[in-house]
């Protein structure tokens, strides 16, 4: 918290503590989130209540996974991208309420809203999509960006649905289906980089700042002219599996 506090006197006791009270994993009622140790959960995200997150999954910045009235389970290798909301319903108009189940290797795009749905393995929910209660996105299906999928819609395998309200657009080609799985893997790798960076303690952050300054103006041509070899320290090198193949559009 950055606040220009006018009073810094020691008579102000801890009732005015200004540290961030945000808890990434928060229990509510008697439910606690169970998050695999290999999953990346951004510090600013909120994983609350009855949420299960499988291995290799990633929950990106600003997400909210609220398992307060029902359960959410996220499979392995899934990525829930920035600013998304995954919530469950306790009751809805049709009467039956399902927990939110998100399968393995699913990509849920930025700012998506997933409310009481079942998303099966290797599906793709485009960014900004809103999936209302009871929606089932089958395996290898794609929800286009910005779509609004009405309640209890079932999106069959291999199809792209989009628009508001969501209707069938076209079928997915095999290449695109393979791409979905590939993108989930890419995101998993990217998540590891972010996880490592977010978990760094204070010393490492400061040390890397210094390193970056030192190597900021590194110019290989000039160095070779001088006959000097300056290698980037390992802290500054990103792992090579993070960036996907050249010809694949992410």
């Amino acid at each position: 918290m950055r606040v220009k506090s006018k009073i810094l006197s020691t008579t102000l006791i801890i009732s005015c503590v200004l540290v961030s009270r945000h808890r990434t994993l928060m229990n509510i009622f008697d439910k606690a989130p169970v998050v695999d140790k290999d999953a990346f959960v951004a510090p600013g995200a909120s994983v609350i209540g009855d949420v299960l997150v499988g291995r290799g999954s990633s929950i990106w910045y600003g997400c909210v996974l609220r398992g307060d009235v029902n359960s959410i389970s996220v499979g392995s290798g899934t990525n829930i991208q920035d600013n998304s909301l995954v919530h469950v319903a306790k009751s809805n108009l049709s009467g039956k309420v399902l927990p939110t189940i998100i399968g393995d290797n699913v990509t849920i795009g930025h700012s998506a809203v997933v409310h009481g749905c079942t998303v099966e393995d290797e599906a793709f929910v485009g960014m900004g999509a809103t999936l209302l209660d009871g929606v089932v996105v089958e395996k290898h299906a794609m929800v286009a960006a910005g779509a609004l999928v009405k309640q209890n819609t079932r999106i069959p395998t291999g199809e792209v649905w989009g628009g508001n309200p969501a209707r069938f657009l076209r079928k997915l080609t095999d290449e695109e289906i393979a791409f979905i799985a590939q993108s989930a893997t890419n995101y998993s790798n990217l998540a590891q980089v972010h996880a490592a960076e977010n978990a760094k303690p204070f010393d490492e952050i400061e040390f890397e700042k210094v390193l970056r300054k030192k190597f900021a103006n590194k110019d290989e041509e000039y160095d070779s002219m001088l006959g000097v070899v300056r290698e980037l320290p390992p802290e500054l090198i990103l792992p090579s599996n993070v960036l996907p193949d050249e010809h694949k559009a992410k």
Partner: protein
Amino acid sequence: MATTLARIARKSLTTSTAFSLKRHFGTEAVAAAIASTKSITPSADRVKWDYRGQRKIIPLGQWLPKIAVDAYVAPNVVLAGQVTVYDGASVWNGAVLRGDLNKITVGFCSNVQERCVLHAAWNSPTGLPAETSIERYVTIGAYSLLRSCTIEPECIIGQHSILMEGSLVETHSILEAGSVVPPGRRIPTGELWAGNPAKFVRTLTHEETLEIPKLAVAINDLSKTYFTEFLPYSTVYLEVEKLKNKLGINV
């Protein structure tokens, strides 16, 4: 006085290491909870609460996000990877600018309003560079999603709009709220587009075109008042010191 305080705090932090603090506040019996279904193995060390909160600037490897000195970036924002926020720009609360696969630039006097997500794909379907570049005097309305798009100077992007890979919004155009621009779509100069998918509505009059940079400047003015509310560095370490003293945790 502040610098000596900072030095002392830094020394105390190095000796304590954040872990001891986390263990005191963070661990609960949750980790003992079952790893039964789908063999999830939660880690006992998983941090439940970190007083540092979410860092604003997340460098990845050599890429360090750069913020100009008079740009206002809210404390809630996450800038990761190759992000450059130029002079007079403002990035409002809750926005996420993820330049991890490609560059993101926010131009002079532009503003990225609340809860936007700007991301850049690795490559884009059109020939355009896959970086997300927002030129000068652009207003990006709240809750928008921009992915690998190029926004030329002096535009307004309405709230909750979605711009997909490779789209190009040319100068002096306005996108209405809630519009979804499909991949590779070009919005020509001086036009108003709306809808999902975005369709042409009408051309803008000259007066409306003149208003566009005025909006950006107005938001820039607003951001100055927010800017003056914050110190350049976080003072949370003082609070942490207070907490440590109060609770008797040894450094």
